[in-house]
């Protein structure tokens, strides 16, 4: 009797084990392409009234800086160097990209524009005196007409150096301010560009 039960149990066990073990072995998990990642931040800078082409400075997630990069003294982190001339005006465009798949680089800037009410770009000046930033006339705006600061105009005066910290803030509680705390919300992007005004 005991044996009979064990046999039944074994048959029962096998009957549900077999289909499962067979079906599972051949499956390989699908590759996930993360659409929401922002792995690259760019500043496209063009000097007003100059015939020179715009220069794009790129901050990449993977430490492979492109464009102008060099070790900075007194600073451990590698940074991207932006060189500007004093007493000039520049048109600057911020770009956000998902370059996690080099073969398929996505432009996230468009999404930010589409969800303008839920996003805000904040350009914070750190230890740099001779630079002021205002929104460009052709900048994208949210439903209340607040500029997103995707396009801005940078005016340089005196020679100085410092960082421009680019933030992309998600669901900000305020759309304007002079410090990070003024905006509330959560940080989607925080990268520094080293700027030399010469």
């Amino acid at each position, binding site marked *: *009797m*005991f044996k009979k*039960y*064990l046999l039944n*149990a074994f048959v*029962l*066990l096998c009957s*549900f*084990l077999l289909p*499962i*073990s067979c079906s*599972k*072995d051949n499956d*390989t*998990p*699908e*590759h*996930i*392409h*993360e*659409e*929401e990642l*922002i*792995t*690259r*931040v760019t500043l496209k800078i063009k000097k007003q009234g100059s015939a020179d082409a715009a220069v794009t400075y790129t*901050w990449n*997630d*993977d*430490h492979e800086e492109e464009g102008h990069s060099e070790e900075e003294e007194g600073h451990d*982190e590698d940074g991207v160097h932006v060189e500007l001339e004093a007493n000039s005006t520049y048109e600057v465009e911020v770009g956000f990209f998902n370059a*996690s*798949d*080099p*073969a*398929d680089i996505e432009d996230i800037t468009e*999404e930010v524009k589409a*969800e303008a009410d*839920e996003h805000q770009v904040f350009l*914070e*000046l*750190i*230890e740099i005196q001779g630079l002021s930033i205002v929104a460009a006339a052709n900048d994208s705006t949210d439903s209340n007409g607040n500029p997103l600061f995707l396009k801005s105009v940078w005016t340089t005066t005196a020679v100085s150096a410092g*960082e421009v*910290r680019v933030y992309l*803030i*998600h*669901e900000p*509680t305020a759309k304007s301010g002079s*410090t*990070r*705390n003024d905006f*509330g*919300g*959560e*940080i*989607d*992007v*925080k*990268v520094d560009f080293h700027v030399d005004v010469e």
Partner: protein
Amino acid sequence: MLTFSMRLNRLVLTLIFVSTGFAFSQECNIKLRGKIIDLHEDSPLDNAFIQILETNQTAVSSAKGDFVFDNLCPGKIIVKISHISCEDLIKEIDLKKSMDIKFFMEHHIAFLEEVIIEESQVKKLSSTAKTYLLSERQRDRSSSQGLGVALENISGVNNIKTGNNIVKPVIHGMFGSRIGIIYNGIPLENQQWGQDHAPTIDHNAFENIRLIKGAGTLKYSGDSPGGVIVLESKSLPIRDTLYGKTIINGMTNGRGVNLISSWVRSFQSGKYFKIQGTLKKNGDYSSPDYILLNTGNEEKNITFSLGRNKILSQWKVGFSFFSNEIGILRSSHIGNVDDLLRAIESKSPLIINPFTYDVNAPKQKNKHHTAFFQYSKRYDFNSKLNFQYSWQRNNRQEFDIRRGDNKNKASVDLLLNTHIFNSNYEWGRGVMRHDSGIFMQIQDNFSNPDTQVKRLIPDYFKTKYGSYFTTTITPSNAINYDFGIRWESHHNSIQKYYDNRRWEADQYESLYGSYVIKEVAGQKLVKRKLVFNNISVNAGMNFNLGDAKVLGLNFYLTQRAPDISEMFSDGLHHALATIEYGDPSLTQETTKKVVFNFEKNKGALQYSIGPYLSWAQNFIIIEPEGLLQTTRGAFPFWEFKAVDAMLKGIDFDLSFQISDYISFEHSSSWIDGINRNTKTPLINMPPVNIRNHFLFSLPRWKSFLMALTSNNFLRQNQFPDNNFYTDVVENGKIVNKLVDISTPPDAYHHIGMEMHWGPYSLKHNKIRFSLIFDNMLNTNYRTYLNRLRFYADEMGRNVMLQIKFNH
């Protein structure tokens, strides 16, 4: 159904006949010798009336239960046995030769109830380790909350929380995979590794909730050095009856409402049907000073079971469905370390809105289905064979605040299917009782790629099988010995995508390069098979010293295979802004634990003192390893690793009946956990807590009961320093600021009160009212074991009105 011993007898007789060359004849000279045995007491039954229906021959059993019929002819006969206190037994017998048969008689079904109930009480989880049982008042009081809250009044049991709705029990400083939750004999499989994964179980569906500290029941699990929680349904009466219980709760904090109801229909034949359902809904909770935005919660559970209880056999089929949707404090959703720093520096949450029942992202949705079938058969009163098959389907979805098309998609969507088949045999009586079983479990985890987020844990397929043997020796009434051994073999097949960046940073190529089966878009798919064999041993003894004093000592050796999450997790931990990485080279964790217990369990003054020591090798913890530069700024990343650890502590319980109308209960516990390699404290060790409880009743007002509870939690001063620095901008300059994620919050004290009226008769029902106050003084406090302690205070005052009907 023929019994095992009958079969054996027949076989023996057949062999004798064959060997002596006895020839069957058609002559009517067959002798049928019988013995009638009372199934419950395993004793002979006298004065039973035996009748052969065909021939109308009759006999009466002797004092030894024996009877004889002579001169029977070959062929089939039907024997009917009657006894005043038993059900009639009718048996067909094919007579070919003289034979001896044992007849087991069942008592009248009405008497069986007592026997079954008695048996369920006798059946202890362990005869040497202390078992804690929740009282009905404790279960009802916590009916509006989760299992963790229901257990927290037991000394040495704490909770690790994420906000107020996600609560996980911690036993002796261990939680998650290091404790076992067993319901209806099934180990709960629900991604229990996660700190913010509360057990997907409705404790309102169970009448028997018991807990053992330490791996006290190797029958159910061998990898839970922390402890085991066993939830069971009560044995049902064997008679025609319909009864039920309904609890309605209304709460001021969160404006919550619960409806919990269960109904049982049982029959004289032993058949029964049981249904239980729970509905819970609450909106945003509030702390004393502000609303905790997005902390609403909704829960819907249902359980059915159907079965038949008889003395010789039992079967049961059950199905249960658990589902919840839990809001997570809105302001705990942060983007990076700067946001975390802002939250820590701010006294109140950064986002506070008016009260609402709406639950938005961040939130969790969990569904847990269970279907099971159980069958048990008894061969005589002392041996029993059980079979059980169960299927669990657990779906966990976590929703974050997202952008674009993915806004309403879950970020984590895990589907875990678990099939468990187990069988065990219990035998022995008196001095020696044994239990041995085998089990097999297969489990499939699927991480839904539609989330469009990198898998937090990979897809895997796990097969687990093994067996156990436990024995209890009771040489005298004063001594018990327990011994148990369990072996488990785990076979994991894992398929995981690694980012090339991490693959290179951790130099995985030389170790796992040969397991790469595919390369796509900057990632490598690795397929590995991992095998772990675990042995767990338990030895315990228990001495009754007389005067109701009992001394117990238990030793446990447990091995736990690393969790899939500990080996392969890969993702962002939102509440702490940390990136967590698994370590694929981990091996199993071995814990030796000694639990001592001295108690006095009768009289006006009762107490229990329980020191313990856990000595662990390869104890898997997660620690900060460095900073990772991302477009969101620098993130600290934490990695799982194995260390040598020691956890020691002491639990103390005391109760004193001061007078007929006043009683006092006290429980307290202290624990210390250290990493023996670095000599630093382990993270998340519960602080010292002291609970005092006074119970009053009034001589004149018999149906009134009142209780006052004081809960004192000291500050945890033993903690590892996992702090780090981040640079933020202040006045146009970069300032390096400390992000203090380590320092525990201050000590706190809160007071609760409960008043109970009833039961009063209302037609055929009994009705009981309770008014329960939690955090009566509206104290502001934060708890160390709450992962959202950086963001907001705990709940403020709550008043709950409970109406309970017994139908």
